[in-house]
């Protein structure tokens, strides 16, 4: 089970009007349909950047699905996040092939350098670190994905370098 907690969001609360404007079209997509929780939550996440508490409550009310049920689904799956994400989401593979090829060391080094743990975001909102189960590029292990770019054959130093370069581009 994904160990995620629905905590209070650090983001500013959104007003009813803004919620309606941003989520209205999404809600309409699912009105009257069965089994919509996962795609609905995914769309909310895409729109807001994360599964915002008010957004779930709003959509739940509109579609007559208890918010608790939606949160129940959201917390079950690794894909959903409950806090705003960094500009770059670093998904480090901690699958078997990557583990055998030393991804634990990469994780330690990333955590040390970014001063965050798995699942957290740096204070400057640049990087979010997420350890994932397998990116399906095991023959290039260890692997990480920064937003949509896959980087293979990592070493701790190379991983730091990649993120350093991104930071310097700013």
């Amino acid at each position, binding site marked *: *089970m*994904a*160990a995620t907690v629905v905590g209070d969001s650090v983001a500013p609360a959104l007003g009813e009007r803004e919620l309606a404007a941003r989520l209205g079209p999404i809600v309409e997509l699912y009105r009257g349909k*069965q*089994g*919509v*929780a*996962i*795609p609905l*939550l*995914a769309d909310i996440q895409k729109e807001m950047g994360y599964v915002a508490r008010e957004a779930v409550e709003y959509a739940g009310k509109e579609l007559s699905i208890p918010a608790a049920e939606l949160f*129940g*689904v959201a917390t*079950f*799956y*690794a*894909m*959903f996040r409950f806090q705003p994400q960094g500009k770059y989401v670093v998904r480090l*593979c*901690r*699958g*078997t*092939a*990557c*583990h*055998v*090829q030393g991804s634990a*060391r990469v994780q*330690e*080094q990333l955590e*040390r*350098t970014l001063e965050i743990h798995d699942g957290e975001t740096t204070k400057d909102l640049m990087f979010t670190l997420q350890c*994932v*189960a*397998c*990116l*399906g*590029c*095991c*023959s*290039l*292990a260890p*692997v990480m994905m920064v937003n*949509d770019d*896959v*980087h*293979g054959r990592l070493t*701790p*130093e190379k991983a730091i370098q990649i993120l350093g370069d991104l930071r310097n581009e700013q």
Partner: protein
Amino acid sequence: MSSKMTVTIGLASCGIAAGALPVAQELERLLVGRDDVEIKKVGCIGCCYMEPLIGVIREGKTWTYGRVDLKTLHRIVEEHLNEGRIVEDHLILTEGVEDESRRRAAENPRMEKQVRIVLRNSGLIDPKNIHEYLARDGYRGLTKAVREMTRDDVIKEVLDSGLRGRGGAGFPTGMKWRFARDAKGDLPNAKNPNGTDKYLVCNADEGDPGAFMDRSVLESDPHSVIEGMAIGAYAVGASHGVIYCRAEYPMAIEHIGIALKQAREHGFLGEKILGDENFSFDIYVKEGAGAFVCGEETALIASIEGQRGMPRPRPPFPANSGIWKKPTNINNVETWANVPWILTHGASAFSVYGHGRSKGTKVFALAGKIKKGGLAEVPMGMSLREVIYDIAGGIENDKKFKAVQLGGPSGGCVPEELLDTPVDYESINATGAIMGSGGMVVMDEDTCVVDVARFFLSFVQKESCGKCPFCRIGTRRMLEILERITRGEGALEDLDLLSSLAEQIRDGSLCGLGQTAPNPVLTTLKYFRDEYVAHIVDKKCPAKVCAPLIHYVVDESKCVGCTRCAKDCPVKAISGGLKKPHHIDDETCVRCGLCKKTCPISCIAVA
């Protein structure tokens, strides 16, 4: 040069990860305005470790180049395309070429050992172009089934082929189809007394870390899966299909989407398929959301219905009560991809390959400490040794083989003395591992099997849905014990405790996740007990992996005091000034190993 050439570039996600995109862009730029050469964007042929790959095809001959960077690409265009001269140092594979270059190509023996049924088109065709699939016998199996065969004929063909599910358990596919066909659907009518309101699912969750064959097939040849499902739908009388694909595979999802649209346009999906009044079937894609347990059939159904993916007890079996309580048949990607070939070539052509009760071929995802990582499809019955040494090229840096991990979190580690085990379901089960979905992670002497067992338990412990106390709490206890052992705080009694917990978790869990979670521990205990004992009694990690049991030390007699290690150390654990011997403070050291890598004269060692 007169005759037309084709240049292929592998753009599956493994190719892109290896840097194929800039190569493709440059290729397009270089060939602008040339009508003697055509570019074809293909998927993955399985030589992932050699990517990016470029193929040159001419008059039925193919030359494939590996590790192609921009410079090599320029040479290929200059020398091969323009002057007809082969770029020998990057040539890895040839086909249909009967001259010297054939002998030089490194990958030819590896390919010749394979039998490619599932991967018949992967890396050869453009997955976004249905015409390329059609040109290679695509949709012939479906056409034959619908036009020439009854539903029973189709089921019999699949039964006779001996095809078993490639998703893990190896249940005979034809039998599964028969259950689904015999199940009562909701809408029985005169033409179709069993009813048609049934579901087919393609399980493309591929949750096993270390396995990537399903991704590759969906990215490289999505029509073969769609055609397989359409044949299955005809056989069992299903009208709805779902491909449940993990969201971590965006390219697979994109390619399926394109293929589905094309299949509909060509009348292979939709209403009255191939003109058959009584056969309508369509497929949609459902994205998974990242939970390993969702690969389990009943959890997958719950997830498709939009709930938490929690397994439920069986019966009722999905064949009788699946998605929205309708009869549902679930098969794995690779299973579906075999089906069109079986229909086209016949059951006996398939069952020629095989060993014992395992027929046909199996695709393996080769990863870990091997020279040639990637995908390979081999006839069942080939030995593990042949797969690892002849196909995967043996151990990286010529280190010593320690174990091969098969079947992921449900499987186990097979030691060197069992390397002659043939790859078939029964023989692999006999070792204590399982075939699983075909992930093979090879480990060398630098891998600690106790650490690997701990790794898998931490995986299943995180992924347990939490419904069964034995799975939820029992795996937690096992993990704690293993953590203790890897810290050097274990006791010999712990080994018995692990075995007895393993037994209880296996017997007390509802679904396959819990039932098989102890397997990695049990197999390592069985084959590598010494290593557990070394951790417990000698407080040593023989592979020098478990951080609390290792120390980094400077050979102070050799150290010249270059200060490089001290500069690199992320926690400032290294003291000593310029030209003075350095020293590592063991308390502060986090065992990242950076100093050992940095030291120019290799005077830092792990003790």
